[in-house]
């Protein structure tokens, strides 16, 4: 569906993307995950045609659109801050892409309104067509923006931090709703996020980016369980780092076994409940490294000042030159 080859982009002296290759299959739901400045939004805008790459090619459905402007790419784009037209009603917003068609593509007003009504039903905003965007909540506005993007029957849906401006509860509901919608429609979709939880929950595949490069592409479980670079290990999920000869050992807070003869010891200086587990924090004896451990909350909470001895039972070793080995430890 989408094939990107050697995409580079520079803003003045600042290199935003260094040679990105990416293939997306029809119907896939892809997350571009990375911190700010990783180039994820720039990549999304290049796929949309809102920005043009300095070199490299963009193929959409076998067609080379490398120099095609956004208006001719037939992609739906959803903005972080919705970008709804505030002087138009919700229904007029949704029908905008149809009302600007001219010549033989022109659609009669009644048909446009019917289509808008249908899309509002799809995004569960039936009956709100005559309201103005200013009268809707954030979550409702983002759904209007989605309906507006879908109205042009795009071959591809691109979402730039679609939940970024919403509060936690709405964000979670909308996330679940979007996943269901994607399942029902099967439209190839790419969304940008800096929230690893969001990426892991929604996407079929996660593309982790850092400093204009792709660090890892994989299913959410693979990216979480088998990070290939120290960056991915650190950015996706929580990670403890232990210095080791020739590199670092990374393990998740839950990848430990507490045992009296454990090789590592931590002096607990903070304890709190983190959902279903106790989270204990403290400094390692010897190295003084800060670590976080998850302990089952079926047991008593660890006490402050207590020393916990443990072994990481699963960890990854990253060498200084970037190579890594991983797996279960004895």
């Amino acid at each position, binding site marked *: 569906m989408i094939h990107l080859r050697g995409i580079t982009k520079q803003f003045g002296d600042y290199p935003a993307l260094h040679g990105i290759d990416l293939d997306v299959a029809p119907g896939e739901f892809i997350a571009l995950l990375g911190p700010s400045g990783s180039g994820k939004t720039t990549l999304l805008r290049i796929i*949309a*045609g*809102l920005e043009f790459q300095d070199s490299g090619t963009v193929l959409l459905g076998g067609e080379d659109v490398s120099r095609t*402007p*956004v*208006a001719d790419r037939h*992609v*739906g*784009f959803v*903005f972080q*801050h919705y*970008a*709804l*037209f*505030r*002087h138009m009603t919700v229904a007029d917003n949704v029908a*905008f*892409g149809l009302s*600007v*068609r001219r010549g033989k593509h022109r659609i009669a007003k009644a048909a446009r309104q019917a289509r808008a009504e249908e899309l509002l039903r799809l995004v569960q905003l039936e009956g709100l067509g005559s309201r*103005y965007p*200013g009268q809707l909540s954030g979550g409702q506005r983002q759904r209007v*923006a989605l309906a*507006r*993007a879908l*109205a*042009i029957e795009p071959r591809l849906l691109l979402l730039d931090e679609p939940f970024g401006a919403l509060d936690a509860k709405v964000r979670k509901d909308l996330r679940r709703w979007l996943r269901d919608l994607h399942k029902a429609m099967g439209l190839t979709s790419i969304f940008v996020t800096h929230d690893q939880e969001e990426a892991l929950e929604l996407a079929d595949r996660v593309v982790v980016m850092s400093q204009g490069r792709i660090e890892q592409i994989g299913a959410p479980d693979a990216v979480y369980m088998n990070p290939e670079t120290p960056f991915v290990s650190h950015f996706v999920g929580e990670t403890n780092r232990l210095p080791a000869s020739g590199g670092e050992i990374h393990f998740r807070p839950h990848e430990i076994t507490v045992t009296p003869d454990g090789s590592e010891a931590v002096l607990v200086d903070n304890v709190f409940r983190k959902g279903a587990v106790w989270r204990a924090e403290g400094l390692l004896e010897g190295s003084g490294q800060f670590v976080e451990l998850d302990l089952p909350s079926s047991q008593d909470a660890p006490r402050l000042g207590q020393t916990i001895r443990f072994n990481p039972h699963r960890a990854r070793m990253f060498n200084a030159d970037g190579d890594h080995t991983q797996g279960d430890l004895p």
Partner: protein
Amino acid sequence: MSQQPTSESPLARAALITVALTFLGFFLLLPLLAVFSEALRQGAGPFLDALHTPDALAAIRLTLIIAAISVPLNMVFGVAASWAITKFQFPGKALLITLIDLPFSVSPVVSGLIFVLLFGANGLFGAWLAEHDLKIIFAVPGIVLATVFITFPFVARELIPLMLEQGKDDEEAAISLGATGWQTFWHVTLPNIRWGLLYGVLLCNARAMGEFGAVSVVSGHIRGETNTMPLHVEILYNEYDFVGAFAVASLLALLALVTLVAKTVLEWRFGLHAGARH
């Protein structure tokens, strides 16, 4: 009423308000009242007669013509400049932003002189203009040029911060939905800036009708031909025709009042819109 942490003591508040009101009274209200009382000193008859002289009517007509030409021009220039500055990156952008403010930072007399130096009899293009029998200085085209120059910043300065704040998302959304550049401007950008634009046009109009310095240099003060209202006021005043001078001046003052009211109404609508935006 509970004391706010940021508010002053009642005494300080009263003192500050008194100072502000006294200042406003002396420097704004009193002169305004003086203009109208001087104009009507000998009653409504002489006041209306003064406005009915051929020279006064010619000055009023010329002022309206100048405004009718220069305000639409600056509306178009202002929107174009703001659009270019806020939606695109191009070399020389910082210079353009500085140039927009130039008419505000240069004395109006100097602005007028620039046009005399360019188009006057001894100016850069003077010989060529004389050859082709074109008259700019001491004629209506010169007054229009000077007025356009002086009032150029009003619309652009109103729109640039507004359009910067609104960003490019709406426009990008529109073109991603298949709209052409013109459709995007007409259906998305223009409605987004309409109140700001109207506000800028209003201020631009007030200045276009009231400009004295630059217009005085290029006009030549030919009675009944190149005298605008402000110039006419000065001539009558210098001839000790106080009723006539203040009668015309009261029209200009009235324009200022109408502008103020319209501005207040717009700010109210504007504020309402800014609130509904988020």
